[in-house]
């Protein structure tokens, strides 16, 4: 999938389809949507702290990494996963192969690559290194050197 607008629902890790709403929709309709167990799509410019108090009512979160040079998604992933302990899935959508290692270590729990990367070996890019030099949301598989 290459366009964020094409996503209307998404599969979670149990392969159950979850309906998605935009961050804007969620914030404007919290009372209604929090009863429906939907997923929320968060773009780089969305102020993720606005949903901090409602995370228990969100089925999953889709962070949009489409803009290769916009690094806000990594901080959003860190805050959701590590600081606010969001227990649902954090899916990196419109993901880039060369940024998988950064996404996963920041707290993204699964991802959907952009179509242009189909056929390339994801393992190569998700686990490019044997050690890491800093604490992060997810350092599994890496020797920690700090």
């Amino acid at each position: 999938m290459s366009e964020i607008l094409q996503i209307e629902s998404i599969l979670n890790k149990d392969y159950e389809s979850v309906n998605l709403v935009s961050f804007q929709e969620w914030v404007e309709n919290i009372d209604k949507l929090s009863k429906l167990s939907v997923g929320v799509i968060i773009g780089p410019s969305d102020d993720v702290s606005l949903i901090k108090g409602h995370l228990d009512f969100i089925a999953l979160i889709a962070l949009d990494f489409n803009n290769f040079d916009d690094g806000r998604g990594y901080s959003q992933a860190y805050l959701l996963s590590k600081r606010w302990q969001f227990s649902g899935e954090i899916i990196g959508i419109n993901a880039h192969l060369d940024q998988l290692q950064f996404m996963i270590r920041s707290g993204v729990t699964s991802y959907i690559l952009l179509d242009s990367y189909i056929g390339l070996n994801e393992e190569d890019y998700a686990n490019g290194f044997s050690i890491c030099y800093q604490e992060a949301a997810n350092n599994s598989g890496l020797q920690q050197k700090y």
Partner: protein
Amino acid sequence: MANSFNNLKKMYQYNAEDSNFLVERVDQFEKQLKRHLAGELDDAKFRSLRLRNGLYMELHAHMLRVAIPYGTLSSPQLRSLANVADKYDRGFGHFTTRQNIQFNWIELPEIANLLRDLSDEGLHAIQTSGKATRNITADPLSGLTEGEIEDARPYCELIRRWFNLHPEFSWLPGKFKIAINGAKLDETALRIHDLGLRLIRNSQGQLGFSVFVGGGLGAAAMIAAETASFIEVEDILSYLESTMRVYNLKGRRDHQKKLRIKFLVRELGAEEFSRLVDEDWQQTKNDSKLKLNLVELEQLKKDFSLPIKQIDLGSFEEKVDFNYSIWKKNNVRSHKINGFSIVNISLTKLGAAPGDATSEQMRILADLAEKYSVGELRTTKRQTIVFPYVRKDQIFNLWQSLEKYGLASPHQGTLAQIVACPGRDYCDLAKAVSIPIATRVQERFNDMKKLLDIGDLNINISGCENSCAHHHVADIGLLGMQKNGEEYYQITLAGETLHQTVIGKKLGPSVSGENIVDAVETVVNVYLEHRQNQERFTDVFKRIGITPFKEKVYE
């Protein structure tokens, strides 16, 4: 040669894990490069990736920027750089103002082999460019001067590691330059950095950092604001992370000229920025996993401890030689260890870009450093090379060797040692020439007696507002510009960073290229006319103000 060097002590080196990491990084980049060359990775994404590996694309070739962490090099490392210059470039390297070295004629398909060659000596180009934490610079005289709080390099190393491919902060709004100083004088210019750290002791004698954020030169020159007056050593990583998190989430990404953190600090106000950082930091400052590793710090302090012990030279007699004594006066500084001196070596040549070195010069310097300075060299923001451990009774011999190879011009340390960017002769961005102006100023001031009388006065010349030559913080700064198709120079006076950080004041209307050398000479003459005792340029300027300079230059 008999010496008192402790030959058992080796310079800090990366261990096998670190070296392996460098190789893994090269392997990864090689795969990306292959995909790019096969048309599978577009220009925009490859640009982002190659910059994070220090690789720039110029008009006709590629430029690679290699890090010289904390400005410290070993002789074998310098030889390895010389080999790269010969094997992959045209026999040159260019030492930059931020403790890096650049190679200008690199062929893209050879880049991986080049980086592998460098990794053999623990050298790399990771994050020397791109919107991430750049090479962290330190006082080039770290560990050498009296009154220093502590050697900054172990802290540089630990902070460098922490922000090496940091998952959260590798795609920041703009580049992020950090400098750390532990000495009395600020040789790092830390308050013109995105983030500057000053090692200090608080009233209880505890070691920590003052943190300064949002400095920078360019079209909007700003001095970094103090966001924290004292952060304990072990809390520095979490504090830096909070600073970067606020920047990453709130920094401007919508305007190409406002990407740096200084614009965010200015827009929010330093107080509000500090408050946001502090608010974030309260969530993490007690996280034990974010504490600086004090065991590792102690190990690094040992690794970076000085390889010399004080020696009693008895009654050695200094040689009498006119040129030697002039050179020595300008280029040799006192060392905190008895019996030793710090020697500064300039690469500046009349008419050439400052900081350029041939592979032959690099090998000569590597050999001389082994003979006279325990095989260690440092690089400075004035694009000079420092020999940190020269025995006082061997300075003359070193000078003779430097003379032989044309590396001991007595002009060093005087006004004639000008900092200039490549300018319009070499750079597409420049609005005016820099090096020919430097040459004309040097020709105007070619009287050694007058140069010695003037003393250490900095002239920096930038060919455009990007300010690569740091003209804002020189005694006399020249900024090249275009006016009706002709080259003009704006003059700024009395900028400084060594004792305090001051952005130079604009003198008045810009001066044509034809008249600029006259204007510089006039400024110097006004200084000499008003100077009392041994006053520095900036002190005279503070005392008499800008008017006497203005009146003479524009009369």
